[in-house]
């Protein structure tokens, strides 16, 4: 059956949706949705076709928005999406992951919630709050944020989260108990002799490889992979122009293929290296890297790309998409070989995700 591709954009001012047929040549733009709230993450659930968006209003606090008709109409809920009275209140939703009607929600200050009714009501999985190291977690410059959420494909009790700046934590029991999984990742911002702590790393993005249990991690200080569920991490940054970047996106079928967007460095402005835009790809699990620049701006590219703003689709050949801090979206329909700008003049883009549907589903957005 013919496919339809939606690119879901979480932005500083609501959700936007780009929509194309499977040729991915022409895109229509709809939005802004979600009352122009700052949206950190918008995702699509491929089985139910639901679209979820999480963020936080500066007036009204956090909520999860939902559309069952591909963006045409939206509802919002915050039922149960709160800590106990007296705790620092939940400020905003940062990350979402869905499996059918189960929805996982990562928030700031760092915590994890779960919905079993497709985002109507939420339950706090309080294991992270009860972790013995919790009091020592460092909020870093941007706050204590649970921004990366990996639910194992085979066993949804197995969860990895990335928290800035506490590091990677793993639960084998659906969020009840957690352990730090940071061995081998650096903390260059600590004094010498304290740069490989048990926790406190500034993780930027964690993803799980396709058809595999392998994890990849873009960190504030380096790029890593792990073949043992995060118990140990190996540096795969050799060959990259910078060890600093935010997002990482996996190929939909090949566990050895990964896309990154390195920036020029932590303290040098955090834009494209040499102000020339490139996506970097490995085909061999990080042993070697190629710059993909064909069609991307090669001068004065002073934008950044945030941690959730790089994605692939599931077509063959895979599409690759990223959204910039300056509100442009670039897309490749050939696994990164060639690129084009498919939207511009948008608000700052926080997240990019794709939803591939059977053409019969056409009618929304």
């Amino acid at each position, binding site marked *: 059956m013919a496919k339809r591709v939606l690119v879901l954009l979480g932005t500083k001012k609501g959700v936007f949706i780009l929509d194309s047929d499977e040729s991915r040549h022409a895109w229509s733009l709809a939005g802004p949705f979600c009352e122009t709230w700052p949206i950190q993450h918008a995702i699509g659930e491929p089985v139910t076709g639901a679209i979820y968006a999480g963020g936080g209003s500066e007036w009204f606090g956090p909520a999860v928005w939902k559309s069952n008709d591909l963006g045409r109409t939206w509802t919002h809920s915050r039922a149960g999406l709160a800590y106990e009275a007296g705790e620092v*209140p939940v400020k905003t939703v940062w990350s979402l992951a869905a499996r059918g009607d189960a929805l996982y929600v990562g928030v700031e200050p760092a915590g994890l919630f779960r919905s079993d009714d497709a985002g109507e009501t939420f339950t706090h999985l309080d294991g992270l709050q009860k972790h013995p190291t919790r009091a020592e977690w460092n909020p870093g410059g941007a706050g204590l944020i649970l921004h990366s959420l990996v639910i194992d494909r085979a066993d949804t009790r197995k969860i990895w989260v990335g928290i800035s700046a506490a590091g990677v934590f793993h639960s084998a029991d659906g969020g009840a108990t957690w352990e730090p999984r940071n061995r081998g990742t650096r903390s260059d911002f600590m004094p010498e002799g304290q740069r490989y702590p048990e926790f406190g790393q500034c993780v930027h993005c964690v993803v799980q490889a396709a058809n595999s249990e392998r994890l990849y991690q873009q960190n504030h200080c380096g790029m890593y992979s792990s073949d043992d569920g995060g118990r140990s991490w190996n540096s795969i940054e050799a060959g990259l122009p910078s060890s600093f970047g935010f997002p990482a996106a996996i190929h939909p079928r090949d566990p050895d293929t990964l896309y990154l967007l390195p920036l020029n460095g932590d303290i040098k402005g955090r834009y494209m290296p040499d102000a020339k835009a490139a996506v970097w790809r490995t085909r061999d699990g990080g042993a070697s890297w190629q710059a993909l620049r064909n069609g991307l701006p090669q001068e004065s590219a002073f934008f950044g790309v945030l941690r959730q703003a790089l994605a692939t689709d599931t077509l063959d050949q895979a599409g690759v998409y990223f959204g910039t801090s300056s509100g442009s979206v670039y897309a490749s329909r050939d696994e990164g070989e060639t690129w084009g700008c498919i939207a511009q003049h948008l608000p700052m883009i926080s997240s990019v995700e794709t939803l591939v549907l059977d053409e019969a589903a056409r009618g929304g957005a």
Partner: protein
Amino acid sequence: MTGAAGNIDVRLSPLLLRLFPDAEPRLDIAADNVCALIDALDARWPGMGDCIRDSSPAVRRHVSIFVDGRRATLDTKLPPGTDVFILTAISGG
């Protein structure tokens, strides 16, 4: 428009109305204090309570509740006939 006996006269911010399109911009409601008023609003329009009040618990930082023209907290008493405005702060960018 003054309320029924014992009631207070509440007006809601346009931003809240955008979020809860079924809500009324102005309503009569019975409540002894601001906290009870928020509970009553939440009972009518589920979720509205958490939009106005956080889990501190406190009125959210960028929401203002004016009771007879003065900024109120959750404990502020609401004698019958009180005028209440629930407004959103101005904000940059």
